[in-house]
């Protein structure tokens, strides 16, 4: 029942997002016809191309047609590059996915120990240092951090390449090297958010009666922290992982441009510059679906973490 309800909401959200983005992209000035034919083209050629691209039909009809094709997996064919949008997206998707997963791994992998360490020593020097550090990380724009990391690791110490991408299929080692710096850059902002959340929730959990009683049973601090306190404290963290996917995907647009990675974000930026509405639209759909699905998965994970939610 709950699942059906959520699925219905999910479908509605996606309909609204695609409709809004389709209409807005169509209404914005900037015409693919001009982009293809150039400014000096005669009116007859323009009209012919408009008809060929289906741009002479009313907006709603065009949206309905596009949506119908979308349901069959057809994202349309880009009038600019003359290639199917779906193929282009499929080619770029693995890069962005790998970047996102790597960034989350970096962020969570560091945030959990850091948050725990800070909560255990709440108020002491380590905790205060970590609070200051995470506040600073939170205030560093992703492109500033990226530039600084490139300056340090690629230019000064030359331990990793500044830009470029090696797919996993070509060479695993080089693939990891090429994803390392972008993932750290993208993950650092999330790391700060996650660590602060986990710290605050852990401190609250550690005040609970059942933790005091666990201490009264003579269990070690380590056991109490990992077995008793961590799981009830993870709910906010899991929510944040889902909700922050949006910010993270927005970040990939910058990161992929900065590090020269051939992913979805880069494709969208390039398509915006070349007035390729259909490709931009396809990218928007992909991002929204991804976001909605991740948050759907988060709800499922909730129930695994907290048995109280299973009944609801």
């Amino acid at each position, binding site marked *: 029942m709950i699942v059906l309800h959520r699925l219905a*909401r999910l479908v509605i959200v996606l309909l609204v997002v695609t409709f809004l983005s389709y209409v807005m992209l169509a209404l914005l000035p900037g015409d693919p016809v001009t982009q293809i034919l150039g400014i000096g083209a005669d009116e007859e050629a323009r009209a012919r191309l408009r008809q060929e691209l289906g741009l002479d039909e009313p907006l709603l009809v065009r949206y309905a047609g596009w949506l119908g094709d979308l349901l069959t997996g057809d994202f349309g064919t880009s009038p600019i590059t003359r290639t199917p949008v779906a193929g282009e997206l499929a080619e770029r998707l693995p890069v962005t996915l790998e970047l996102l997963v790597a960034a989350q791994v970096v962020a969570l992998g560091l945030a959990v120990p850091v948050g725990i360490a800070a909560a255990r020593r709440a108020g002491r020097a380590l905790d205060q240092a970590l609070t200051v550090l995470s506040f600073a990380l939170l205030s560093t724009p992703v492109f*500033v951090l990226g530039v600084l990391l490139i*300056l340090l690791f690629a230019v000064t110490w030359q331990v990793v390449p500044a830009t470029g991408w090696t797919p996993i299929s070509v060479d695993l080692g080089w693939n990891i090297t090429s994803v390392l710096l972008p993932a750290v850059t993208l993950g650092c902002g999330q790391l700060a958010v996650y660590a602060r959340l986990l710290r605050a929730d852990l401190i609250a959990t550690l005040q609970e009666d059942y933790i005091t009683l666990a201490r009264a049973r003579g269990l070690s601090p380590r056991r109490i922290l990992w077995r008793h306190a961590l799981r*009830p404290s993870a709910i906010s963290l899991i929510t944040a992982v889902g909700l922050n996917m949006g910010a993270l995907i927005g970040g990939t647009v910058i990161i992929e441009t900065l590090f020269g990675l051939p992913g979805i974000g880069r494709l*969208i930026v390039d398509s915006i510059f070349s007035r390729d509405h259909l490709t931009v639209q396809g990218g928007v759909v992909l991002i929204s679906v991804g976001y909605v699905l991740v948050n759907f998965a988060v709800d499922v994970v909730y129930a695994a973490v907290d048995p109280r939610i299973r009944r609801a």
Partner: protein
Amino acid sequence: MRRRLGAGFWIAVAWIALVLAAAVLADLLPIARYDETLAGPPQAGPSAAHPFGTDGLGRDVLSRVVHGARVSLGVGIGAVVLGLAIGAPLGVLAGYRRRAADAVIMAVNDVALAFPALVFALAVVAFAGASLRNVLVVLGVLGVPAWTRLIRGATLSFAEREFVLAARVLGVRDRRILWREIMPNVAVPAASYAFVGMAVVVVAEGSLAFLGLSVQAPTPTWGGLINEGRALMETAPHVVLAPSVVMFLTVLSFNLVGDRLRAAGDVRPSGLEPTRQAPAVLPSAGPRPLTGALLQVDDLRTHFLTPRGPVKAVDGVSFTLERGRTLAVVGESGSGKSMLIRSVLGLLPGAGVARGGHVHLGGDELTAFTPERMRQVLGRRLGAVFQDPMTALNPVRTIGAQVAEPLRVHLGMSRRQAREEAARLLASVGIPDPARTLGRYPHQLSGGMRQRVTIAMALSCGPDVLFADEPTTALDVTVQDQVLRLVHRLREERDMAVVLVSHDLSVVRQWADEVIVMYAGKVVERGPAADVFERTRMPYTEALLQAAPRLTDPAHHRLRVIPGRPPDLAAVPDGCAFRPRCAYARDRCAEQAPPLVAEGGHLHACWHPVGRTMTESEGADSHGR
């Protein structure tokens, strides 16, 4: 109670003011024009003439950063004002007029979150033209959902408060309520978010500029400067570093100001403030000679060090307890009963606490144990049950995992052994179908069942003493008796001692062998239960007894309540702490604190004890009650 904003806040404010002033006065400052090429040698490092150095065309980087601030701050302030202007009315409306508006807001929220905002901003700016106005409008509109959400939340929390409900009931017009009651309270979170929002917008504008989609050259922008500087990273890193550092400091300052404003407006103490005090040891009388009792507590003290001075939660408590006996600790809320239990068990927070005194268990001085050795005692030799069974069990672990844990940790049982023993334990505390209960979660059990589970856990390793801190207060009356009977039966079976904390005197009368009456952290009366109840000495105990209803009371019998309230433990009055509420108080009570004096095994701390007949009076001090 407002907290101080701190030095960091004022430094951040000063930095924002500096950047703002520089941006406004950019044309008047004695620096080169931002587009003047060869103002100095190209790619020169910082110097007196060019504090931030020069870029590849010899332009002054400081001038370009200062002019870039115009765009960043202009967009930042403009977009926040725009978002607030649209979002605040919507948020107030949604928060105050719930129902329909709420549903719409939630739906819009869902969509807004799933919508890739940055992509949208990029597209709009690219297609509609990269002008200051377009960037400002796009970023402002994109901020509207967040503003609506924030203002709605703040309004909602106040629309439900008593003073607003009261105004509504009195028929005050809505507009008046909104302006007079709600707006002032929403203003602080709004001001806080305005600064955080500016940080967000400055970063977003920077991102657009970095991708070449903000205000176009030749006007410099921070994001654009960082993008340009990338090309010179190897030869002239200062060109990219200068705008990066300035941007970082500005965003940091906005975030810091917003964060401090939020903290200052938050009236609830978060409990997360750092405490700097290290644990301290209070002076106390040396340990008395051991009496050979199972549990011997001497002059136990626990003081919490607070900004208002030490709070003496436990202040010199002594008692002994033998096997097979039940000691009851009674007193009003806040008299230090629970703290006494936690102090004996050593379950106090590490920081901000001073402690003193001695606890001996079977000849071992627990107060001298290291935390590691203490863990061998807790669970194995001392068991504890707390008041609220709803919060005493970990909500995300099964009953089986929780009951079996001490068995595995302390007794080294295998998984299967521990499970079987856990089922036996559950059966022994009267839980039906123990095998199935093992696989359940706490929320699936009733309060009485949960309390039985916590008792089973406390008893799992066969402790010598069971500490039960108000074990039945949170339970139904019918269940209370069952649980107390259970504790009593288990005491008999296992030859344990029980320390029972309670404010229910009928419970104490029924189950306790000895009684301690606590007031303001001190023992004011102590002795065998029969003596304390039948030959009460301390006026406070008498008042407690009179405040408790009895089944034998005649109908319409008036219950007496104790006037006043327990003293503030940070400022206990001189003399007897109970004096302000005592009907029998004399001058001497205000001057000197009464010592705990013994009459055989019955001790009391009172200058004018009650219940003393004229014949055994001490002459002049008697006052013929």
